[in-house]
């Protein structure tokens, strides 16, 4: 475990009943990065986050945050002092007012940033005297983010922070997160999301998981460089029913004479192989993060 990493996990496992939610996950989140944690519903994202924060015990493997063991009580308390968490359901105390909840939260965090609290109260237009139960989902999310961002945390762990919000609020929320990350040196943001466009907009690195296992990890720009879509059309009478010898062909979709390859290796070599097999058209094009995600989370055929 190194100081350069905010989060490190190795071989993390958790099963509920017979079902494995997290199945040997390895994770390394560099300090100061904005790290997107992607996967389909039920892929193990929330369970992983809970294990990192000491809310759930792993069955096997080890997780460390700031070099502290997440499954040891005194260390996990220290992790939670230095990290802020916004859960997927944004559950807060309904019986408190906005001001009461802020007053309740502040004393737990010695590094509480009053100027961030004031700024976000104004920016998010949160009514201090309103009960949490009377807030809309968007307002509740904003309040949860205010409580997370103002505590002067070194790590923000955000589980679906923009779930259920309208696009205008999503923009506000993303601006607040990226603004704070730019302003606070060394702040690490670890967030899970289904909204790939948002992740692409703000994340430096991503990890995509499927069935509790890491399937793709890397810097967003490097991944977009690494993966390519190769679309091939064969002439009449030619067969497309063969295996490519070139390495890095992750997935092949066939439709008659038409072939679409999702390639993680040398796409030009794949294209040359296709041309050698008398393809009439070969098109190599870049892919979006969304395509990488969708191809990665599909079950292998």
């Amino acid at each position, binding site marked *: 475990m190194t100081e350069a990493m905010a989060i490190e996990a190795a071989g993390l496992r958790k099963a509920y009943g017979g079902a494995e939610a997290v199945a040997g996950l390895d994770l390394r989140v560099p300090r100061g990065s904005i790290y997107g944690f992607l996967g389909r519903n039920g892929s193990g994202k929330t369970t992983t986050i809970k294990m990192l924060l000491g809310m759930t015990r792993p069955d096997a493997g080890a997780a460390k945050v700031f070099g502290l063991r997440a499954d040891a009580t005194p260390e996990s308390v220290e992790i939670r002092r230095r990290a802020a968490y916004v859960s997927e359901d944004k559950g*807060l*105390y309904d019986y408190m007012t906005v001001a009461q909840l802020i007053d309740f939260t502040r004393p737990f965090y010695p590094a509480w940033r009053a100027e961030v609290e004031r700024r976000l109260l104004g920016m998010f237009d949160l009514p201090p005297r309103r009960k949490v139960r009377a807030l809309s989902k968007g307002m509740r999310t904003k309040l949860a983010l205010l409580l997370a961002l103002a505590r002067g945390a070194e790590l923000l762990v955000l589980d679906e922070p923009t779930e259920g919000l309208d696009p205008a609020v999503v923009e506000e929320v993303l601006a607040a997160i990226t603004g704070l990350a730019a302003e606070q040196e060394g702040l690490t943001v670890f967030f899970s999301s289904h909204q790939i466009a948002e992740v692409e907009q703000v994340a430096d690195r991503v990890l995509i998981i499927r069935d509790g296992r890491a399937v793709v990890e890397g810097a967003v720009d490097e991944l977009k460089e690494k993966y390519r879509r190769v679309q091939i059309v064969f002439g009449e009478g030619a067969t497309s029913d063969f295996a490519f010898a070139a390495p890095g062909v992750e997935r092949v979709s066939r439709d008659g004479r038409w072939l679409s390859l999702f390639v993680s290796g040398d796409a030009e070599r794949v294209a040359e192989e296709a041309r050698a097999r008398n393809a009439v058209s070969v098109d190599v094009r870049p892919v979006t993060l969304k395509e990488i995600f969708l191809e990665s989370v599909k079950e292998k055929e």
Partner: protein
Amino acid sequence: MLWYKAWLETRWRFVCALVLSAGLCAVVVFTQPLIEELRIEAPGFGGRLDEMVREAMALVGTYPGYVWSQWFGKNLLNVWTFFAVFLGAGGVVAEQARGSALWTLSLPVSRRRLLGVRAAVGALELLALAVVPSLLVPVLSPLIGESYPLGAALSHALILYGGGLVIYAFTLLLSNLFGDQLKPIIIGLAVVFALGLVSLFSKDLSDYSVYTLMSGQKLYFEGTPPWAGLAASLAAAAALYFLALRTLERRDF
């Protein structure tokens, strides 16, 4: 600030309980002259029923006996037990149903402290619910031309509290076993009701019952507090509390 949270979560239950028990105390004190006039004879069926009626009539023949049998040994005992179950229900496991458990668990505090503060606030509220209405007895008694010693009221209240903490600790344990607020209340009430029935109809078992202990029967009849019973009850309460803590610490959210 966890104290503040626990207080906000339980204050309405506490205030309602305090108002109800204070009102009940006033009713008990002010109906004494009426009960004095309405004294009845044993129905003559024989057996435990006749015995119970004769014992009750003998007790209400004196004001201290009336206060003990109608307040400390009956009404306060019953309502306080009920409040102990209600105040024991809740906590971070029940918060799962309300959706705020993960927020609470994300705070930089151990589960030991979460449970400790929650338990301590409830225990202090129960202490107030035993002592405050009981102290109304010596305050209100002169209004009907009677008097009741402050020390006796306080002693009975503390025996009720010390003996009854085991019921509170039992509900705390139930609250950490079940992930909602209703199940611990239903199971807790069912258990205390069953225990009450057993001690009501079996004189042999009633000597060892927590209700007999809480009623302060030994103090009233023998003039000495039930030290052994209190020690046993507090030890059982501590054991149940640590079981609740262990359950909470091992729980996955």
